[in-house]
């Protein structure tokens, strides 16, 4: 593990909304090629963590990406730097076609229409269902298809780090499993680093290199998946007993 370079690391990251502070000083690290999972029950602050890293809400503390502080960067600069987020509840552009959603994902790229078109073709081959529906409005897709579209759209910017906010939300278990398989594959085959926040503990632990446990805005435990499932902390954080 020590040979890996640190991609993202946060020090005392604090954020919230107006008068409410949700995150109370979060320290996490993501190394290159890892899938790091942040587990937490509802209301623990998972989405706030994602937003704080992406810079869509005001935050204090330190965030470094590839050794450079991105604390003061705006969201678009962070996307350009290589961190892209798949928002909770998919967040596709419902009135745009599937193809236009993917094009919008490549908004920050400057390497020409040909390269973008090649990438679209590539993600169509990974998610064949999207190709079938390329001219349909994204809003007309099923929940699972929208989640795939949201991930493909994020990948269109060729990120170094993919942030995934609860990809399993509202999806049937079978589809959730399929999604996690794809994420695992992308990690193995493309070397994509992933920071994933999840509620579905069992499924997420399966693909995780390392796991953090978030409870009411604080990291209460961390370690490998095996270490964490050995003790009772997850159960307690989730079920309160």
């Amino acid at each position, binding site marked *: 593990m020590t040979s890996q370079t640190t991609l993202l690391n946060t020090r005392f990251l604090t954020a919230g909304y107006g008068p409410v502070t949700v995150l109370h000083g979060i320290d996490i690290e993501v190394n290159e090629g890892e899938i790091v999972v942040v587990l937490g029950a509802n209301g623990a602050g998972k989405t706030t963590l994602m937003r704080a890293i*992406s810079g*869509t809400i005001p935050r204090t503390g330190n965030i470094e990406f590839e050794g450079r502080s991105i604390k003061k960067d*705006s*969201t*678009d600069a962070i*996307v*350009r730097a290589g961190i*892209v*987020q798949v*928002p909770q509840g998919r*967040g*596709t*552009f*419902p*009135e*745009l076609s599937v193809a*236009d959603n993917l*094009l*919008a*994902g490549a*908004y*920050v790229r400057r390497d020409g229409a040909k390269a973008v078109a090649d990438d679209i073709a590539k993600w169509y081959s990974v998610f064949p269902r999207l190709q079938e529906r390329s001219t349909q409005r994204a809003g007309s897709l099923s929940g699972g298809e929208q989640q795939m579209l949201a991930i493909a*759209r*994020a990948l269109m*910017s060729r990120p170094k780090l993919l942030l995934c906010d609860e990809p399993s939300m509202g999806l049937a278990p079978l589809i959730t499993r399929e999604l996690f398989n794809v994420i695992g594959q992308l990690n193995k085959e493309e070397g994509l680093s992933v920071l994933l926040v999840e509620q579905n503990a069992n499924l997420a632990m399966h693909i995780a290199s390392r796991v953090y446990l978030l409870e009411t805005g604080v990291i209460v435990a961390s370690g490998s998946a095996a270490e964490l499932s050995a003790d009772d902390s997850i159960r307690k954080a989730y079920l309160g007993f």
Partner: protein
Amino acid sequence: MELFLQRLVDGLSEGSVYALIALGIVIIYRGTGHLNFAQGEMALFSTFVVYQFGEWGIPIGIAVIMGMAVGFTLGAVTEVAIVRPISKKSPFAVFIVTIGLFQLLNWVDGAIWGGQQLPNTGVGSKQVRFPSLFPNNPTDFVTIFGANIKIQSLGVIALVGVLTVALFAIFNHTRLGLAMRAVAANGESAKLVGIRTGRVLMASWGLAAAIGALGGVVFAGISTNVNLGLMFTVFIYASAAATLGGFDSPGGAVVGGLSIGLIQNMAAGYAPKWVGQEMKVGVAFLVILGVLLFRPSGLFGTSRVERV
């Protein structure tokens, strides 16, 4: 038949101006959810600027483009300096601010160019007339099926048609258009793919004001006189058009604008005793009220489920 054709062309040429202003309303509404009450007055200001350029001897074609640039700047600055900071407070404050801008811009026009009307008929001692983009002498008409159709009207329809096609090309085939549609569909997600939503909104306001400038110039050309109230009625009709087409649908704005122009001219033409010049605006009122009561999101608008 002749009368019908004439009313058709008149309706379409007026309607196409409504469509332009309605497009401006829709572009802004989609991006920010605000109704810009100063939309018509921004257009009027640019229209007077174009008139001034004409007075200085600049050819009308170039003057219009310069006027549109002035309009773009006015719209963009308004969004960045006034609307964006105030919209963090409340939608009510934005409403008041656009009313304030309405009043302020109208006064500025009067303060600079005077409250008097510019007679547009080409007669009178000073021969002051608004520079027209198209030949508009009394002899400039073509006869189609016995109807005398002014070249000016046809020119307006053609110009607005071309502009609308160009706008839709921008919407559907450019980076800016993609960004505008993305911001309209989901602002947070647009940020997350790296779109600078602030710049897009600024550009939207600019674009809306620029096409408004063109609408103002065109409308000044087909009106009998140009005065400080010129664009206010156009704004009312354009709002009715946007309501009819759906506040978030650019295509709807165009269809709505043309429909309002047609309905109005046909109604005033075929039922002069009932509608006449006085109640032309009543048509707009009935359209707005009827649409909102029976089809609240317009003909082409999307209805969104309201969640608590």
